[in-house]
C-alpha cells in the first residue's frame, strides 16, 4: 500500500479512484503511565509513554485506513491527512483519512 500526503503518487499514474477511506483509533495509557507523566511535568522533558502511545495510535489508524483501501481494491492512498480530537480525557484520539486510488507505472499500462 502506497501512502502519500500529496495529491498524486510521483512517478505513477492514477487510473481509478474509490472515494475516501478513514482510519481512527482511541487509545489510553494505564494509570501508572499517567502518574509518571504527571511527575515528569515537574521537570519537563520527553514523555516517553505518551510518545509511544501516539505512535501506536498512528500506526493503528494507518493500518485501518490501509485495510479499508485494500478492501476497495486500491493500491495507494493519496492526500492523507491526520487529525485529532479530544472526547476522552487522557486518551489519544487520532484519525487519518485520504483518497483510495489505483496507480500504475507512468509508462506501462498496468
Amino acid at each position: 500500500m502506497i501512502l502519500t500526503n500529496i495529491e498524486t503518487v510521483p512517478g505513477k499514474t492514477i487510473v481509478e479512484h474509490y472515494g475516501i477511506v478513514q482510519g481512527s483509533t482511541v487509545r489510553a495509557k494505564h494509570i501508572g503511565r499517567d502518574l509518571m507523566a504527571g511527575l515528569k511535568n515537574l521537570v519537563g522533558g520527553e514523555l516517553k509513554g505518551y510518545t509511544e502511545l501516539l505512535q501506536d495510535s498512528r500506526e493503528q489508524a494507518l493500518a485501518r485506513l490501509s485495510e479499508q483501501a485494500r478492501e476497495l481494491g486500491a493500491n495507494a492512498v493519496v492526500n492523507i491527512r491526520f487529525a485529532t480530537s479530544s472526547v476522552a480525557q487522557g486518551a489519544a484520539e487520532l484519525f487519518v483519512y485520504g483518497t483510495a486510488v489505483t496507480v500504475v507505472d507512468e509508462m506501462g499500462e498496468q
Partner: protein
Amino acid sequence: MQSKIPFIARSTDDTVNVSRTHPLAELFWMLGGLVVLCGIIFIALGIITDLVVARVPVKVERALRGIALDQYGGERHPALNEIAGNLLAQVPRDSPLHDYEINVYLMENEEINAVALPGGNIVVFTGLVAQVESENELAMVLAHEMGHFSHRDHLRGLGRGLGLAVIVSLLFGPDSSASDLVSGSLLSFQAHYSQDQEADADRYGLDLLVRSYGHAGGSIDFFERLAAQHPDRLPYLFASHPHPDARIAALKERIDSYGYPSQETIPLDSALYDVR
C-alpha cells in the same frame, strides 16, 4: 491535459474502525481486573501498615488524633473520663499506654459499640451506655479499648481504612458518590479488628479491671446480657467482634485459671444514668 480519473463506487467493510469486542465482556473483564487490583493494593497496604505501625512513635500518632475524632464527633464526658482515669492509674509504669492522652467521648448513636481512635481517644456510643448496668461493666469496655491502644490495634484498622479511602479517591475522584459510599463504610472498617486482636484486648481488659477494682465482678455481665437479648440476630457489635458466647467462655476460663474473685458491682454514676 489529462482525462478524468474514473470513479469506482464500491462499498467497504464499515467495521474496520470499531473493535469487535463486546462492551459487556469488556466491562466485566475490567471490573474484575479492578477488583483484583484493589484487593492487591488493599492487602499490600494492610501488610505495610502492620509493619510500620509498631515503629510509629506515639507522638506522631497524637498528631492524627484530631482528624480521626472529627469523623465521629461527640462530647468529652467527665464521668466516663473518671472511670478511665482510675483504670489508667493501675496500668504498669512501663506500659506504652502512658504515652497516650486518654480521652473518652460520648457520641449519640444507637449502635452498641465503642471505638479506639488514634492518639488515645475512645468514643463510646450512647447505645452502649444504655445497655450497661454497672460501673464495672463500663470499666470493662474502656479497659478493653485500652487493650487495643496497648497493642496498637487501632492504627492497623486506621491504616487499612485510609488505604481504602486512597484507592477509592484515586479511582473515582475525591467527591464522587462511590467515595461517599466507601467513606460511609470506613467508620465500620476502622473499628474492625481481627478476632485474635479482640480476644487479646479482652484479656488485657479483664486483667486491668481486676487490678483496678480488686475483683472480676461485672466483667462478663455485659456480654451475657447482650447474648441473651440477641440469641440469633447479631447486632452491629458482633459483626466486628467474636460471638459473645465465645468471649464469655474465654473470659470465664481466664477468671478460673487466675482465681480472680468476684464481688458486688458498683452502680452506674447518675450522670451516665441520664444518658439512658
